[in-house]
């Protein structure tokens, strides 16, 4: 090795860690000052500096190690760098200005650079040390995976972030059957919102990789080597190799032991200096302004500043980075940038037919964040506008369409449709062109969207072109077309409630992000009006598959109590059919005393209301009521409220049947169900109708020959007497008919539509035909109701008492003293 004469006089620079940040820093340094320093670099890995981010292509067999080397041996020689491959530094002595190597050698320095990167985080589960459990960080890990691939089998990747998904894709190329286990509900949740996460999951699943979300790993199973992964819900996934990719931790051990200031990472200032004046740190091991980074772009910026400082430039400052992410998996185009931490406003574009989702988060005239899926060509452009803080007000209208659309005059949507040539395909599902739609409107004098749908099929399948079809109608008919006959669910969509429900079934949409994407929602996560409706539709359509989203429920349903004007709650336990016992009454009295509940009232629904309960007392109140055998009365629910009864044949001199007993049975059948709006029943023992059954959603009037079933009554904002639906002879028939009516209503009514409104929409005859005249249909409806009730006929109070979402009832923090004494002037 040529040793220049100057070496003796040069100051000694020692670098710990030979990774991407260190390599870049040396390059920058040599560009500024080719031979000011005598450099020694220690690398724990037994090799030169290589491009770590290209490990995935190596794993996938698309590249070799040689392809990804950044600095070969010749480079180190040419710059007179003493590279100590495979030698780790085990300790640092700041006072003595020296480091100690794994071999025990003590090496002194004038300036030290720490660039130790980070370490994969390993979850503390039993079995993680078994052979066959690997992390994903360096070439040795890739070699282990490739060696295992020779035998083939099943791979389980723990972690659905960037690294985990790249590992999964690579392992699949190597012939493994792959499953990814992810703790959170959506993949890459730190970079992507739910909609993009949904599309990503769909694409990865389509490529044959199994994705299991909301899965908590409990243990790695195996005796001499890994054999499987056990999840907290008891599921066991067989595995021949397990890749742990759950996150990284800055590698700070030597810095911490040496007494440098360390939080999550080694704390550095804007000059990249640590708490010791002669020690600089760069890369993933540092924490700068509270931030640790896990991508190369910021590390390169740090490397540049560190090099400038070493070269004597006292003005070079690192002020933090905005990062962007791309996933390097073939066939998946995904881009995300910005931190979205103060967004006010958003622009969303969805093209379900092509799996495209784009979302820009704005604050006034600046872009704060961007998520692109399916079409990422404009990622760099948005990222540039974001970093520059550019004013986008002049192009706001067309911003979401990308750079290519800028410059021309902004188009309004109708003008844009008008400008389309006649042969443009409008409805992708049914292959209908603009010309065909226009011709059909003219030829058949069509005036509504439904007309166009039945004539041309346009917008009758996925519905995402509905807006365009309406614009064509408006263009063709001019003022004659009034879109107002259709009422979209809310401002987030052009589709009606009925259409959305239809698509949930026909397209098998089982989550809110799936609905938002496939039906082209115009907002990223819905609004206070559509979210509760969608949650109900999903609960109803997929009782066993869909996990209820409590954040999409109105507060009353979220905490199973009715909110009052002062923020306290009311609690109403069930009294089946209006019956109670001395023990129940005593328990209610005790609860009222114990929790100082100010008001106890008999409701209009034949039960007792405890009013003015403090939120944090709710779980305790429920626990005490549960202990006395009482469950939630659901006085808050879009679900079964009460079944009012009268005394009936058991005591009353006019009673024809046991109306009280039947009411109890009906309440036990229907309780817990979720319905479009509240459902109230009444059962009267004779036509004198003391239970007011003829103003209930469903009413039963007992007569000598059996039971008259009534529906569609109301006595609230609108008073309406029921219509007689039909007559049956036995209690069991009543129960089957009522369950079937309820299910038909659950499946077909729009959210918040009470039974009477729904019946007026579909017609009494329709309901009669479906329930009274079609036994097979009735039995099928009742069976579907029962299937759903297997999931929902559970006391929500008991679930909460046992700890579900317990955080709901306590403040996250209580601040007793806040810096300045009470009453002091500030």
């Amino acid at each position: 090795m040529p040793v220049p004469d100057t070496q003796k006089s040069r100051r000694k620079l020692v670098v710990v860690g030979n990774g991407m940040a260190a390599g870049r820093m040396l390059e920058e340094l040599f560009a500024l000052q080719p031979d000011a320093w005598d450099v020694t670099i220690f690398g724990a890995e037994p090799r030169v500096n290589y491009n770590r981010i290209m490990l995935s292509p190596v794993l996938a067999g698309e590249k070799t190690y040689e392809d990804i080397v950044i600095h070969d041996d010749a480079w180190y020689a040419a710059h007179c760098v003493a590279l100590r491959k495979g030698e780790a530094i085990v300790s640092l002595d700041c006072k003595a200005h020296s480091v100690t190597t794994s071999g025990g050698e003590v090496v002194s320095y004038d300036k030290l650079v720490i660039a130790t990167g980070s370490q994969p985080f390993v979850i503390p589960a039993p079995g993680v040390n078994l052979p066959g459990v690997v992390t994903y960080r360096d070439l040795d890990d890739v070699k282990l995976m490739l060696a295992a691939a020779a035998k083939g089998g099943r791979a389980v990747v723990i972690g659905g972030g960037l690294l985990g998904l790249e590992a999964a894709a690579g392992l699949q190329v190597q012939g493994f059957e792959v499953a990814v286990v992810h703790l959170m509900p959506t993949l890459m949740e730190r970079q992507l919102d739910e909609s993009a996460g949904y599309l990503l999951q769909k694409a990865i699943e389509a490529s044959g990789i199994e994705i299991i979300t909301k899965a908590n790993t409990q243990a790695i199973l195996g005796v001499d080597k890994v054999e499987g992964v056990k999840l907290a819900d008891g599921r066991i996934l067989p595995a021949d190799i397990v890749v742990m990719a759950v996150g990284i931790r800055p590698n700070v051990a030597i810095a911490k032991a040496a007494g440098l200031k360390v939080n999550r990472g080694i704390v550095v200032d804007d000059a990249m200096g640590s708490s010791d004046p002669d020690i600089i740190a760069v890369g993933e091991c540092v924490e700068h302004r509270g931030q640790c980074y896990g991508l190369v772009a910021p590390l390169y910026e740090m490397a540049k500043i560190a090099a400038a400082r070493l070269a004597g430039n006292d003005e070079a400052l690192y002020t933090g980075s905005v990062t962007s992410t791309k996933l390097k998996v073939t066939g998946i185009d995904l881009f995300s940038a910005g931190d979205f931490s103060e967004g006010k406003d958003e622009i969303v574009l969805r093209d379900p037919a092509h799996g495209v989702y784009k979302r820009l988060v704005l604050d006034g005239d600046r872009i704060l964040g961007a998520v692109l899926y399916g079409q990422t060509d404009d990622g760099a452009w948005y990222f540039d506008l974001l970093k520059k803080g550019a004013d986008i007000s002049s192009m706001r209208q067309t911003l979401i369409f990308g750079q290519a659309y800028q410059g021309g005059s902004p188009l309004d949507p109708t003008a844009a449709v008008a400008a389309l040539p006649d042969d443009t395909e409008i409805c992708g599902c049914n292959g209908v062109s603009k010309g065909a739609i226009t011709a059909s409107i003219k030829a058949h004098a069509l005036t509504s969207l439904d007309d166009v749908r039945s004539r041309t099929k346009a917008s009758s399948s996925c519905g995402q072109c509905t807006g365009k079809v309406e614009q064509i109608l408006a263009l063709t008919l001019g003022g004659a077309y009034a879109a107002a006959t259709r009422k979209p669910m809310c401002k987030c969509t052009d589709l009606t409630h009925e259409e959305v429900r239809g698509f949930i079934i026909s397209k098998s949409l089982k989550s809110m992000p799936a609905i938002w994407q496939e039906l082209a929602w115009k907002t990223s996560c819905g609004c206070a009006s559509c979210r509760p409706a969608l949650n109900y539709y999903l609960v109803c359509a997929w009782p066993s598959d869909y996990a209820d989203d409590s954040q999409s429920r109105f507060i009353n349903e979220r905490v199973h109590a009715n909110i009052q004007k002062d923020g306290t709650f009311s609690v109403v336990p069930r009294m089946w059919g209006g019956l109670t016992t001395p023990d129940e009454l005593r328990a209610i009295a005790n609860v009222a005393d114990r929790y100082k509940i100010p008001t106890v009232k008999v409701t209009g629904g034949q039960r007792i209301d405890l009013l003015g309960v403090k939120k944090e007392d709710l779980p305790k109140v429920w626990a005490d009521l549960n202990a006395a055998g009482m469950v939630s009365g659901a006085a808050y629910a879009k679900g079964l409220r009460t079944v009012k009864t009268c005394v009936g044949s058991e005591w009353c001199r006019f009673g024809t049947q046991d109306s009280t007993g039947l009411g109890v049975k009906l309440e036990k059948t229907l309780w817990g169900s979720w319905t479009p709006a509240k459902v109230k029943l009444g059962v009267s023992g004779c036509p004198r109708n003391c239970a007011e059954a003829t103003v209930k959603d469903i009413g039963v009037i007992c007569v000598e020959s059996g039971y008259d079933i009534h529906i569609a009554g109301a006595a609230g904002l609108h008073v309406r007497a029921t219509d007689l639906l039909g007559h049956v002879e036995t209690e069991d028939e009543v129960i089957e008919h009522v369950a079937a009516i309820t299910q038909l209503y659950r499946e077909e009514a729009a959210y918040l539509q009470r039974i009477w409104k729904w019946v007026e929409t579909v017609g009494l005859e329709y309901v009669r035909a479906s329930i009274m005249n079609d036994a097979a249909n009735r039995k099928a409806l009742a069976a579907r109701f029962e299937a759903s009730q297997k999931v929902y006929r559970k006391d929500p109070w008991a679930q909460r008492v046992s700890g579900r979402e317990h955080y709901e009832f306590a403040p996250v923090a209580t601040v007793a003293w806040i810096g300045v004494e009470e009453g002091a002037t500030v």
Partner: protein
Amino acid sequence: MNAVTLNWFDIGPLTAIPRRGARTVRTPRREIAVFRTADDQVFALENRCPHKGGPLSEGIVHGAKVTCPLHNWVIDLESGGATGEDHGCSRTFPVKIVDGHVFVEMTRAIAA
């Protein structure tokens, strides 16, 4: 007169607040609602609706807004202001996230 100092309080990890949800912080003078949106933005507002004092923390969070549970006013989480036709404003507090923990600046929480 005391000098004005900043009072940043660590109210706990971000993960303690459900996405599209809120938790409250109790202080001697008032209750503060800390909201977390679907994309992890965090906002702190006095837990009182400008309309009739409804507890905003119990509302449905959508985008960077919350719908009050009592009469459906929609409040902008960033400014604390009512949106649309409604007028009024809830007090806001500065928030920052450090190391996954939420910090709320409470100087204004003690002002009367």
